[in-house]
């Protein structure tokens, strides 16, 4: 089982009306705050044993559906949590 996390951000040159609304609300109390941008985080699990397959599926659904490249940028991380825990050991202080 792999875990995937996609962070989607509106491209810098695209107007972010949510960010603008939050920014204006915040500036009533915090004049120092500038350039608020709102993005989204999408997480999912992929039930496969192959890391290549997990990556391929994640990339495919991210590019086909989760992100519109005309207006959005993204970062994608895929990892095997069980393997990560094993490698770091039971005693690893998180």
């Amino acid at each position: 089982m792999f875990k995937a996390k996609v962070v989607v951000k509106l491209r810098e040159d695209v107007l972010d009306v949510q960010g603008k609304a939050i920014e204006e609300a915040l500036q009533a109390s915090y004049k120092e705050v500038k350039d608020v941008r709102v993005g989204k985080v999408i997480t999912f699990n992929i039930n496969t044993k192959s890391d290549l397959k997990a990556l391929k599926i994640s990339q495919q659904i991210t590019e086909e559906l989760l992100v519109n490249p005309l207006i959005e940028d993204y970062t994608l991380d895929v990892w095997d949590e069980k393997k990560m825990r094993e490698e770091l050991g039971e005693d690893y202080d998180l």
Partner: protein
Amino acid sequence: MASVKVVVFPGTNCDQDIVNVYQYKLGISVERVWHRETEIGHCDLVVLPGGFSYGDYLRCGALAKISPIMKGIKSFAEKGGKVLGICNGFQILCEVGLLPGVLLPNIGRKFLSRDVFIRVESSNTYFTNGLKEGEVIKVPIAHFEGNYFTDNLESLKEREQIVFTYCTSDGEVNVDDRLFNPNGSLGAVAGVCNAEGNVLGMMPHPERPLEGLYWSNSALKLFAL
């Protein structure tokens, strides 16, 4: 005999208006198609009506991409079939790549529900060949995400893919005037078509000014087969 199919997604809510236009105003056979169908079947025109497909989750129109009917609509359009998307239907056609661009939230952060004027920029499409270029039509809009954005406006203009722009009652386009380009669309674009001219998407609702005193002959012409 001419026939029309109206695609219904979960959250579509303008399908009855389209059915009324064809059935009662034009006397053309019209049928609804549920989004879980895989084939469009035989017809002369497919309409994607307005509404809030999939609750506008993820991005407006984006989740309709994975509806089984989309494959059928794509192959219908690729074979030259006529497809008309209104409001949410326009957003869907952009998201699935049948039309260029995307619809962002309105620049003023408000849901806009009112009449606007739009100018016919191209009568060179299947839908607008009954209209004159430069003609001004009064139609209502009702949307939160109608702010058209593309990264190749100039080439769309060159290829006559800009079909409607928001304008004043005299047909003057002023992209910075919020009264006459209400959602802040790039180039005041209100409707675009594909390169072949058989797929049209528009944010305004031409199916609405077709009752009693709220009437536009030009709007009706858009639906003529």
